[in-house]
């Protein structure tokens, strides 16, 4: 989707790709640390540690390879990204996560709905939040009452 053919002009080292290489190396280090400090349970000949070490080693090699490609500028060019929509949608998901057990499914999910629509440039929130809450409430009734899915209830859900 964001892949584009690499351009022919000379490339500078790709800083973002270098960050990816660093993250991969950190993941490898975390796996090694966590496996080395884990205790117990290695009664079998090839214990629970072997596979994590192997994966960590491969991740480390991939981190070096990524750094190498980053310096050479081999990564595909990226489209310029808008930050605003990301903040709205991630914020909506975070709000739903935090409010779910306090405000119940309908209100928390209604906020997610409105924030996502806002991320796509649609408002106003005073209109989309009520729409989202009504929609989520209907979904709650169908899935929690009809299909017996355990969806957290809040003040709105306790009304029925």
């Amino acid at each position, binding site marked *: 989707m964001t892949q584009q053919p690499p351009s022919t002009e000379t490339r500078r080292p790709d800083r973002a790709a270098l960050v990816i290489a660093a993250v991969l190396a950190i993941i490898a280090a975390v*796996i090694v640390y966590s496996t080395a400090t884990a205790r*117990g349970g290695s009664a079998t000949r*090839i214990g629970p540690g072997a596979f994590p070490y192997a994966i960590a080693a491969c991740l480390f090699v991939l981190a070096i390879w990524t750094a190498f490609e980053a310096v050479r500028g081999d990564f595909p060019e990226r489209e310029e990204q808008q*930050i605003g929509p990301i903040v709205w949608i991630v914020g909506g998901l975070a709000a739903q996560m935090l409010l779910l057990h306090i405000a119940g499914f309908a209100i928390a999910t209604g906020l997610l709905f409105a924030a*996502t629509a806002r991320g796509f440039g649609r408002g106003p929130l005073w209109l989309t939040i009520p729409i989202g809450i009504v929609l989520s409430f209907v979904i709650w009734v169908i899935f929690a009452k009809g299909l017996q899915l355990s969806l957290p209830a809040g003040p709105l859900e306790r009304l029925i």
Partner: protein
Amino acid sequence: MDSFTLLANGFAVALQPLNLLYALIGVTLGTAVGVLPGIGPALTVALLLPVTYKLDPAGSLIMFAGIYYGGMYGGSTTSILLNTPGESASIVTALEGNKMARAGRGGPALATAAIGSFVAGFIATMALALIAPTIVKFALSFGPAEYFALMILAFMTVSAAFGDSTLRGLTALFLGLAMGLVGIDLQTGQARLAFGIPDLLDGIEVTTLAVALFAIGETLAVAASRTTAEEKIEPVKGSVWMSREDWSRSWKPWLRGTAIGFPIGAMPAGGAEIGTFLSYSVEKQLAKRPEEFGKGAIEGVAGPEAANNASAAGTLVPLLTLGLPTSATAAIMLAGFQQFGLQPGPLLFANNPQIVWGLIASLLVANFMLLVLNLPLVGLWVRLLSIPRHWLYAGILVFATLGTIGANPSTFELGMLLAFGVLGYVLRLFGYPIAPVVVGLILGPMAEQQLRRALAISQGDPTVLVHSPIAVILLLLAVCAVVVPLIMRARGKGKVLSALAANED
């Protein structure tokens, strides 16, 4: 018993009224969700998995199969009427199909896609029924070493062989494998990478990861993209029925597409896309009027659509007979089996024949239902396309979180969903493939089990892995799957491979 007796028994299961109802619900839901732009079969299946939690195993898997086939049908409608790239299995259909729709021939394009899908689905499902018992017989002789080699081969073909970068494919795979480590080690009971968090002891849920990567990652990527492409829905004008000429130009591509798609799907190579691209280029070369290609040639819709559905059925061959998922969709289906404590593979055929054969028979039933559902009712599905994007994606996120909350209403699970969603966005941004992450997560722990079992039998002697000729051949193929593409890219032939990229399904 031969395949036909077993299949007849399967029909006895599939044709029970309740199971017919499940199949109908499955194909309807699958088509509806599949039609929505931006949602491929993998996400369709992942989103609808929670709906099947409360059903019995047979009914649930039958509904599942309906969702899977329905998602494949629905995708073709989207790509013909709405030129939506990004869904890899339907890129080729969009090439010619959208041109046909613009020229006012949307009806015949939809018809040849639907009938081609039916023909291909029917032949490929029959082929599945015919060859499955043979593979099962063969697979019963497999030991842990052979399974391990088979999984290594699947890892390499899914991640490294296709796509535009070996590095990024392998990185995606190993991210999935690292996630697969999280949780309690099945053999020794030791907690790994759980960092003392109780929620992590059960490991990372495949459905949480898949929904996050596909639904949330895709939503973020679409929202953040500055290029808001003008999406125009082509109205279906005139009759949806094909003329005599359309029929005579379509039937050979259907059969050729099926012949290309099924083996590719059945091999542990992953992705329905590869078959569609091959079919397209074959049709282009065999066409009587190749100059029509690029302007709306019906062969270019008929062949790839048939290949698409045939390889979807082909993917079920390794999944059902060996328990080996070779695509993201198959990985999620495997998770669907596991939620009922069923492990696909040769033993499933021996222990639960009524479920396996009921499932295969219900695929044929679902295929027939889809033909009826898609041809006369196509106008109804088209209306779904006119949902504005902001409502659509807001709705997708509501349902994505609904599935996760329904499975496990914990704040921590939603936090993982959010984190993986952001990961999915970053992966897309930097051109990493998504499918290897999902396949790595589900197949990694299985590969580890087989490896440790093999080494336990041999008392720690690693040469056990190369004792049988089958294992050696499989491992050599796996090496080739990594090395050959590297050489091809170095020699400037990488374009062919990136054209064959297995991105989403």
